[in-house]
């Protein structure tokens, strides 16, 4: 006999509200449905009522974790409509902040995943390590969230030589901590038992359902906007796309940990090759003429896309925000099928969902 087990909208294993309806037989999940919209704030509607400068500030508040990704992708899209190319130095600064954001986002998620499987010692280690990245972001931007770095035609704040040295030193320390954490996670029996073979999303399913970002890469699909369609100065950096073949929750942990090492590599290259020059266009605010454009950015959770339709006024006709969770959430029912109810929370969390981003 089938039973419906509701999970959420408010549930201890979920950091944000979402509703999943599990159709179960005993402990086994036979089917599942997912319902979203509990954090819908009408941000796209509000964006149509504000000018482009105000909208940059607004979209930065779509998400507390990947705030820079939102503001930067929006400004990149508007710059493309206006035909403006920001300076190389500002592109490098945007790359540095984006990669630091990826580091703290992945550290946060690894902590949450470990907490979900009941391994609170490693959860606390991961979050403790993350504090070092938050300190780096605070040093470079002045804020721990909503950095306000991306502006039209460049960035708001420069990075000094002294700041670079401090961050490089902190990165060395963080890398050592990351190696310890990775070693623990990869060799821990509890982690293996709770994550291996759980929540499998095959490569074929990942492609059909349109999974993106680390979630797709953990299903052995090598997609990464930074490589596939380079933007900013990403084509000048050497880094690898981390993929893993087991397609389960364990693979999602492995991929995110490996990506942290690649991000550290990118930040070091950016410091080493940082070009000289202006960081923005000063008082020259670009005019955004009538036109449409869509830009993509590899945010921590995957491809973030902004579609802006400009009508020649100071307010956009449409700002359409599509976030990685919107693409990855439809894969959740497929991953849940055939697993036990006890793993449902972990499987939902394994896509690194951001429901605030998704609902907008």
């Amino acid at each position, binding site marked *: 006999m089938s039973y419906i087990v509701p999970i959420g909208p408010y549930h201890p294993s979920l950091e944000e509200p979402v509703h999943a309806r599990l159709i179960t037989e005993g402990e086994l999940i036979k089917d599942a449905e997912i319902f979203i919209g509990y954090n819908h704030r009408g941000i796209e509607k509000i964006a149509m009522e504000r000018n482009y400068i105000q909208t940059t500030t607004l979209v930065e508040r779509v998400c507390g974790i990947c705030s820079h990704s939102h503001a930067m992708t929006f400004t990149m899209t508007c710059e493309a409509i206006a035909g403006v190319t920001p300076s190389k130095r500002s592109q490098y600064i945007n790359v540095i902040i984006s990669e630091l954001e990826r580091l703290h986002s992945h550290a946060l998620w690894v902590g949450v995943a470990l907490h979900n499987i009941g391994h609170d010692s490693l959860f606390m280690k991961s979050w403790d390590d993350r504090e070092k990245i938050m300190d780096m972001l605070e040093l470079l931007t002045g804020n721990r969230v909503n950095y306000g770095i991306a502006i039209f035609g460049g960035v708001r704040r420069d990075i000094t030589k002294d700041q670079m040295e401090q961050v490089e030193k902190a990165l060395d320390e963080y890398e050592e901590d990351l190696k310890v954490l990775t070693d623990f996670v990869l060799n821990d029996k509890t982690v293996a038992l709770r994550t291996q073979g759980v929540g499998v999303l095959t490569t074929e399913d990942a492609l059909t359902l349109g999974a993106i970002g680390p979630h797709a890469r953990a299903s052995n699909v090598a997609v990464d906007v930074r490589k596939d369609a380079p933007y900013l100065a990403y084509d000048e950096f050497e880094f690898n796309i981390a993929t893993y073949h087991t397609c389960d929750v364990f693979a999602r942990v492995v991929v995110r940990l490996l990506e942290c090492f690649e991000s550290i590599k990118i930040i070091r290259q950016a410091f080493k090759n940082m070009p000289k020059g202006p960081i923005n266009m000063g008082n020259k605010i670009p005019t955004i003429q009538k036109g449409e454009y869509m830009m993509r950015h590899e945010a921590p959770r995957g491809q973030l896309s902004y579609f802006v339709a400009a009508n020649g006024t100071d307010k956009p006709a449409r700002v359409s925000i599509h976030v990685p969770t919107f693409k990855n959430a*439809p894969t959740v029912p497929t991953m849940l099928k055939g697993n036990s109810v006890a793993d449902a929370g972990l499987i939902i969390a394994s896509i690194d969902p951001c429901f605030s981003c998704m609902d907008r």
Partner: protein
Amino acid sequence: MQEYRKIPITKDEIIPVAHRMRKDGVILSMIHGYLDEENIPHISYEYQIDTVIESYTVVGESTVPSISEFYSEAAAWPERELNELFGFEFEGLDTSKRLFLPDTMLSGQGHIIVTPMDELIDNRYKKED
């Protein structure tokens, strides 16, 4: 570097384009829609071909066929979103359940992106009264 290429198509070309793209293994990046200043609907299908986004755009149609048979949930979710927030109709799309908005909102309600802000505020206060 990323490129955005706009290609105007008619309503009848939506299915053949989707079929060709799916057959070629092209990723559907997103489906966008909006009403321009003259209230004319624009619906665009953004296909991701390497560094280029090919945007197949239909103008002036608020009812179009669904491409969810080719792209499964990757098309169904954006279509459901446009259906709920704009009221655009997608023939063949299952809209029996709401995606973003509460189940209690009946069909025809909740098109917040196209409803003027004043009206939304008035409705909100009316509800609270």
